[in-house]
């Protein structure tokens, strides 16, 4: 089996296997394990893993200030810098926060992923637009994926709170603005699934991505697709006892776990995949979420020349001193008319004579 297929099938097998485990587990009446133990364990691993990860990162110092300067830096006062310049090459902490915010909230760098359509006739404006747009697909896919995920997670807070905070109602009505189907279709779930499928398809279709993708790239995508599919199936097609689910969730949230009757196996499959996602998160590439905050090429201002940056492990190095070089070439330097610290012997004798 070739590299790509092997990595993809391992990831697919793992996700299907996890679903099967949950399914068999429920059939074997292990609801307690999958409804209570697994989520607590997952949250524990998530929190501890995250702390461990962050500490591990933070323990290594940042020896140099190396921001990627993506625009004109602070210079002479009359050199104009646009708002974009200030954000892309921040001169102080304030602007660096702006840069990070733009990076994290709007995926600034991915958005940069444009290519100009210079071969095209500038008169043919429409065509230019199209080409321009097509290179935003990765950005669009990524941003749709992340925001849809966020909304979905927030929506699920409804299960863990009683009464649900007000903003959740607003969120629900916004999310369900299409007023289509019963129960009302939440756009976020559909977008999440579509975006995840797009990101997966991209990996499988584009040759160079297929070449670089590992099981660790397919697995989280498939896991999330699995979560989305089971979730959507549960909401719209194979409904489960929602009151019982809420009881379970509230029980978990209030640390008084109960395992109510009447919850379908589909729910446990969904729930178990979520648990796995949480537990997997800190130890995988998904840690890019906290990691991006620590990225030295983004989270530092480009102020090296007017603010000293100290390297905590800076150490003295051996270098060739001026005197060593003068010692080596003193005679010749003197003859060439170069000033020297110590006059050569010939000069002294010459002077006396």
């Amino acid at each position, binding site marked *: 089996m070739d590299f790509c297929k092997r990595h993809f099938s391992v990831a697919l097998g793992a996700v299907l296997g996890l679903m099967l485990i949950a399914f068999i587990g429920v059939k074997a009446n292990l609801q307690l394990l999958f409804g209570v133990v697994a989520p607590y364990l997952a949250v524990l691993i998530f929190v501890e893993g995250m702390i461990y990860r962050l500490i591990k990162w933070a323990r290594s110092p940042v020896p140099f200030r190396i921001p990627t300067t993506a625009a004109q830096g602070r210079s002479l006062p009359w050199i104009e810098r646009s708002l974009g310049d200030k954000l892309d090459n921040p001169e102080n902490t304030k602007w660096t926060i702006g840069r990070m915010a733009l990076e994290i909230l709007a995926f600034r760098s991915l958005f940069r992923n444009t290519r100009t359509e210079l071969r095209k006739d500038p008169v043919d404006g429409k065509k230019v637009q199209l080409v321009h747009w097509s290179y935003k697909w990765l950005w669009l896919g990524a941003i749709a994926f992340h925001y849809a995920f966020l909304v979905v997670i927030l929506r699920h807070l409804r299960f863990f709170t009683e009464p649900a905070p007000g903003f959740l109602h607003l969120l629900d009505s916004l999310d369900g603005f299409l007023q289509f189907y019963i129960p009302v279709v939440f756009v976020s779930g559909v977008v999440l699934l579509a975006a995840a499928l797009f990101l997966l398809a991209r990996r499988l279709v584009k040759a160079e991505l297929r070449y670089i993708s*590992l099981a660790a790239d397919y697995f989280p995508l498939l896991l999330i697709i699995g979560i989305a599919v089971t979730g959507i199936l549960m909401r719209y097609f194979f409904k489960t006892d929602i009151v019982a689910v809420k009881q379970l969730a509230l029980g978990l949230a209030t640390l008084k776990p109960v395992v109510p009757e009447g919850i379908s196996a589909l729910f446990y499959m969904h729930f178990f995949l979520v648990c796995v996602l949480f537990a997997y998160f800190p130890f995988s590439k998904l840690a*890019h979420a906290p990691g991006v905050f620590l990225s030295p*090429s983004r989270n530092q201002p480009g102020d090296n020349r*007017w603010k*000293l940056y100290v390297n905590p492990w800076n150490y003295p190095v*051996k270098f060739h001193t001026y005197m060593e*070089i003068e010692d080596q070439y003193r005679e010749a330097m003197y003859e060439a008319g170069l000033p020297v610290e110590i006059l050569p012997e010939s000069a002294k004798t010459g002077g006396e004579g």
Partner: protein
Amino acid sequence: MSKLPKPEELARNISFQTPAKGWMDVKPDFRPGTYCNAAAPKWMEWVGYPFPRAWSVAEADWKLPPDWKEIILAGMEDRLKRFRSLKIFFDICVRCGACADKCHFYLGTGDPKNMPVLRAELMRSVYKRYFTTAGKLLGEIAGARDLTEDVLKEWFFYLHQCTICRRCSLFCPYGIDMAEMTLLGREMLASVGLNIDWALASVAQCYDKGSHIGATPQAFKDMMDFLAEENERITGITTPPSYNRKGAEVLFVMPSGDYFADPGTFTMMGYMLLFEYIGLDYTLSTYAAEGGNFGWFVSHEMGKRLNVKIYEEAKRLKVKWILGGECGHMWRVCNQYMPTYWGESPGFLEEPVSPITGTRFENAKVHKMVHISEFTADLIKHGKLKFDTQRNAHIKLTFHDSCNTSRGMGIFEEPRYIINSVLPEGNFVEMPPNTIREKTFCCGSSSGINANENMEIRMLGGFPRANAVRYVQEKYGVNHLGCICALDRATLPTLVQYWVPGMECTGITELVGNALVFPGELERTTDLRDRDLEGFGEAEETEEEGDE
């Protein structure tokens, strides 16, 4: 008797790789022209580098020390402890591929391992195998692999097909910087005695004598005197520099490319003319005779060993501040590393103030070093320079932003301001937007790989840049490629000779030197390169036209 191949078969023969093979199973092909030669033991001994020995890249046996693997792994562990960047960049890549087609080496060679994501993965896979649980347990399926000699050779091959230009880091959603990983990877390679000759020869020469070219102090002076004489011959203006002069206001530091290699020499003549014009109290140093820093291409420590000479010399000569010439990686080092290497703000220097305009360079408050483009732009802005732009009328220019000053410093407007002031209107044309400024394409030969033996790979690496240059040549008749980088001035002429014949390279201060109008100067008939000025031969005709 072997069968004669048909053309189809011949053409197909080129394939060395089937799609079924994963990247881990493909070994690098060390064809002549694609790699740099191994460093001669002599250079390694000069700078005290480990395992000096004669070895050859093309041979199977690289004569590695017996415990090379332990050294590399210990080196990686040490660097993970010292560089958060390395840890983060190893851990958070999601392999989205946004960087892939941003690398000039990938664009030029089409070799998938030149996608920055995969080039990083060459090292990341080893990190996973030895420093992560998943990699230890799951091996290949977790993207991990054993560190073998083949892997090490792969590092050597591809880490010298990265010019540390940072274009990938610009497009990476997490700012993962291949340059940082390449630098640390090269450090690890050096720790088992794998260095390239071109880089290390320059380092050793610079360390021992003062400049990459290995000029002795007296040879340095000789050359500078010659360039001053050339100035006098062409312009009638004497521009005698002073050397190692204590108490001068400014120490001027430039890359050695500017005084030994054309067309850098013309830029040097430009500096001298400019300083003479404004009467700058400056001195050159035979000790800090090299602004460029090939050491930094080899390791952070070596970068520091060469870089500290500049502040040391400024201290010895008791100058007030430092002015730096046109150079890319010199400025990347000076901007992002120099004061940090030094450990404190150099208190023996003063905050730079232009003696001519009184401008305080507040952005160099701690660093105390000013970029020549900032300095010149400030002079022009204050109307201190008188130009005859017609003397540059024969130059139709496009400007190549150097990677290092772009993505490692952020200096874009100053050189453009100067260019627009010294060229006649309409003689400056930009290359396509995605190939300039922060998105600029590298010359393809930076970071110590501008050797001679790897010319083919350099031509391919520089191809995206050349392609954009050719575009403006065809479309606008551009005949000069301007830059503020000595490595560019050394390598771009070669690049364009192959891909864009008829294109010349020039520093920006050379153009300033051409255009400066001195009181009492000779009537200028040529530019600093002894080329006839436009309209001169048919002087009468043009004058008549001018009169009308």
